[in-house]
């Protein structure tokens, strides 16, 4: 598909193109091989920023943090779409152009291929010795016998053969499927893209933290985070629900990986819809539960200490399991407790939980298992900023308008609690108790329509790729005519992929034909490497 300039009619100024010609020229440019190559390399180049600049859709937390650290770059990057490279207009433009170029390329090629498929091998060129790869032999058998044998040998080597008795040649061609593989590969790329688009448009992905013993039913309000596709329709969400009955975890207490956990199993009871019978499933990493088209994954776990806050009046202002997020492999976890209903002032706690508490220059966790659970938190009283209507993260304590509770000596007052104990806040502000410990599971729920389309597409692409790489389209011609002192046989070949080893194939064919070099010194011309 090389780009050829359209010749302009004489009446126009040189170089002037009519709109139709311009469009044709632009189209030819777009579907040319060179453009496809440039677009491919551009696509690679354009994908790079997304691996270096944090991506909002991949890790929103990291992105927002990066943005805080780079206040000058952020607006520039924002305008360039660098925080979501893979759906930015310029990235889309490149791959859409590539797709158009691909379609524009494969449609005409398919037509050409369709015709070529049924065509007989082309007649032998008049002078085979002009072809780059050829050899000449002299034999005793008559020409007809040589040609008959050549037909047989080439047929056996799975060539499509035509013979011309009167002109004395055999033409053979093989490797028709290479182009088919090539076309299949390119078509499959479109299929993959279709599958990918289906997932991106109609799918969704959401996450939820569920307390062990708690449950979840599949509707939007229950998710902690939810990323819908652009055409996602929530009425189509499958009405399943599940309970996390139990969670097993095995901690390694010895060996090199001591402290690491393995064999996480979350025991679920689920119903495919509210009226359906209960079913059970052991949810593990790498073993998602599929309900209809939706899949449920276990992707994290952690602790939820049961904390009770009593306010200055002695009333319970907060009580319940509170989700703490693990910070390191020892499950030192970070959390916030807010008691907006505490009187006379609101009470907020922020700090850490240690499943196996120890102290050495500060509190730390020795081990991920809850062997000696303890809390260490600081206390704030006053306005926690929860009443002005702006939504707040449950993991952030707004201390702007609150005051930190201090000890008599002016140091920060810390609530250091072993499980089952209670500490009184200074000046009768209330008390905090650590009553128990629960666990939570982070469950990821996703629906990815089109995933099998994409998978099928890639598999087909691979099949096409293999065909296009390893099937060698070749033409071989044999010419035989009576000459002085015997029959002169010329054998020549052409490799249409440009990467095949024609001399080797010719040598094999000649050997099968029982040919011996006429002039031993004459070597087959070998093309020299270099741009052709």
């Amino acid at each position, binding site marked *: 598909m090389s780009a050829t300039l359209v010749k302009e009619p004489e009446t126009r100024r040189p170089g002037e193109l009519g709109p139709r010609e311009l469009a044709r020229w632009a189209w030819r440019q777009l579907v040319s091989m060179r453009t496809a190559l440039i677009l491919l390399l551009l696509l*690679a180049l354009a994908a790079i920023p997304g*691996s270096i600049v944090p991506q909002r859709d*991949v890790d929103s*937390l990291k992105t927002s943090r990066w943005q805080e650290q780079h206040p000058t770059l952020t607006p520039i990057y924002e305008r360039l779409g660098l925080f979501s490279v893979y759906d930015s207009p310029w990235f889309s433009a490149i791959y859409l152009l590539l797709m158009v170029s691909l379609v524009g390329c494969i449609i005409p090629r398919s037509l050409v291929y369709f015709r070529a498929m049924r065509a007989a091998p082309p007649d032998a060129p008049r002078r085979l010795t002009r072809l780059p790869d050829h050899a000449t032999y002299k034999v005793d058998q008559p020409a007809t016998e040589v040609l008959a044998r050549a037909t047989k040998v080439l047929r056996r080597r799975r060539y499509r053969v035509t013979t011309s008795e009167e002109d004395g040649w055999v033409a053979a061609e093989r490797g028709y499927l290479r182009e088919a593989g090539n076309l299949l590969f390119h078509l499959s790329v479109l299929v993959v893209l279709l599958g990918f688009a289906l997932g991106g448009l109609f799918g969704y992905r959401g996450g939820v933290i569920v307390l062990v013993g708690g449950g979840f039913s599949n509707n939007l309000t229950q998710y902690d985070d939810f990323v819908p596709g652009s055409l996602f329709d929530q009425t189509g969400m499958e009405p399943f629900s599940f309970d996390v009955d139990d969670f097993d975890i095995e901690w390694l207490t010895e060996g090199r990986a001591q402290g690491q956990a393995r064999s996480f199993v979350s025991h679920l009871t689920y119903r495919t819809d509210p009226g359906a019978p209960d079913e059970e499933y052991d949810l593990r990493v*790498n073993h998602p539960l599929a309900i209809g088209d939706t899949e449920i994954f276990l992707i994290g776990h952690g602790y939820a200490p049961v904390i009770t806050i009593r306010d200055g009046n002695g009333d319970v202002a907060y009580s319940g399991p509170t989700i703490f997020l693990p910070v390191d492999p020892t499950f030192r976890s970070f959390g916030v407790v807010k008691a907006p209903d505490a009187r006379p002032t609101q009470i907020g706690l922020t700090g850490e939980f240690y499943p196996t508490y120890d102290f050495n220059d500060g509190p730390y966790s020795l081990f991920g298992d809850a062997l000696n659970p303890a809390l260490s938190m600081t206390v704030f009283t006053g306005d926690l900023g929860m009443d002005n209507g702006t939504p707040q993260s449950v993991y*952030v304590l707004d201390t702007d308008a609150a005051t930190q509770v201090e000890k008599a000596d002016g140091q920060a007052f810390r609530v250091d609690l072993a499980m089952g104990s209670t500490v009184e806040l200074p000046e009768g502000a209330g008390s905090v108790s650590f009553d128990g410990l629960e666990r939570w599971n982070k469950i990821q729920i996703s629906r990815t329509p089109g*995933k099998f389309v994409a998978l099928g597409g890639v598999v087909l692409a*691979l099949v096409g790729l293999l065909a296009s790489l390893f099937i060698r389209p070749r033409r071989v011609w044999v010419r035989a005519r009576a000459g002085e002192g015997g029959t002169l046989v010329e054998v020549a070949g052409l490799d249409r992929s440009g*990467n095949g080893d024609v001399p080797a194939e010719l040598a094999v064919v000649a050997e099968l034909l029982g040919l011996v070099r006429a002039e031993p010194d004459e070597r087959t011309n*070998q093309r020299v490497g270099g741009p052709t």
Partner: protein
Amino acid sequence: MTDADWETLSNQAIAAAGLVYFLALLAHLVEWSSLRKVSTRSVSASVPVAAGGVSTPPGDHATVGRDEGSRTAMFGRLGVLLTGLGVLVHLVGLLARGLAADPDRVPWGNMYEFTVSGTFMIAAGYVLLVRRFAWQWLAPIVLTVVLSLLMVSVIWLYSPVAPLTEALYSPWLVIHVVSAVLATAAFTLGGILSVLYLVKERRPATTTGYLARVPELRQLDQMAYRLHAFAFPVWTFAVLITGPIWAHQAWSSYWNWDPKEVWAFITWVVYAAYLHARTTAGWKGRRAAYLALLGTATLWFNFIGINYFSTTSQHSYASAPAVEQAVDLSVAPSVPPPGQLSGSS
């Protein structure tokens, strides 16, 4: 034997393999240095090049004095023999590494293990095919590459045997990693041949020294192409079929634009461009070699380089020493807690 014994054995075997490879390299260097002043012209002129065959292997010492010739040939054989021995010791190191883990597993859990496995594949592939393809001339290069990668892995990438994280217990570990390492090995070899092509292209007519015994340009080009043509479908299988299937099972989404995935994709695109340029635009020789080298660069950047640029990768086996383990004090509920079970593969 206890796991600790196996681990010691593995470390010793890898060190020993490195030593044996070094001796093999020395043997080949002796071979090549004594061939340094010998012209290939007389040799190649008297031996007709078989059509499509491989050009003068260094074993042709027709013009070398009889003593010198046999000595050179002996060192050549010694080199191959030592390389074979090195491969066996290397294999012991790999097996012991797998047995040192509890439970026993394939030794493909971290960068050190990948590199040790990858170098093993290169060395074993070379030893198995050296006779068939007359690859004697490749010996110094293969040994240098294997040796330096082994040194890199022992010095910088080493990490003690540890059980895999939960997400790695999957049959896909075997399939995905083997195909990725295999493709990487073949691409790397193809890259080396492309470098050789570019070097030889500057002095194509040289008749002495190492370059003269490297196959002619056309064959170098073709061999490079074949290696790439082999590696590309394997790479496609690794990063676009098995990778997404596993990612879907473990991380709930088959394509996450994870930095490793992005760079695997970039590498795929660059090599696709290479094959595309060769088959349709007729690029051969120098221009194709440059594209191949671009591919090699992205491939290795993906394996090692990207670890230093991005800390968000879920391929956490690759946490580079300089990269602090990013620990998120999650401030928004929309963030998966870092206590992820599946945080690595």
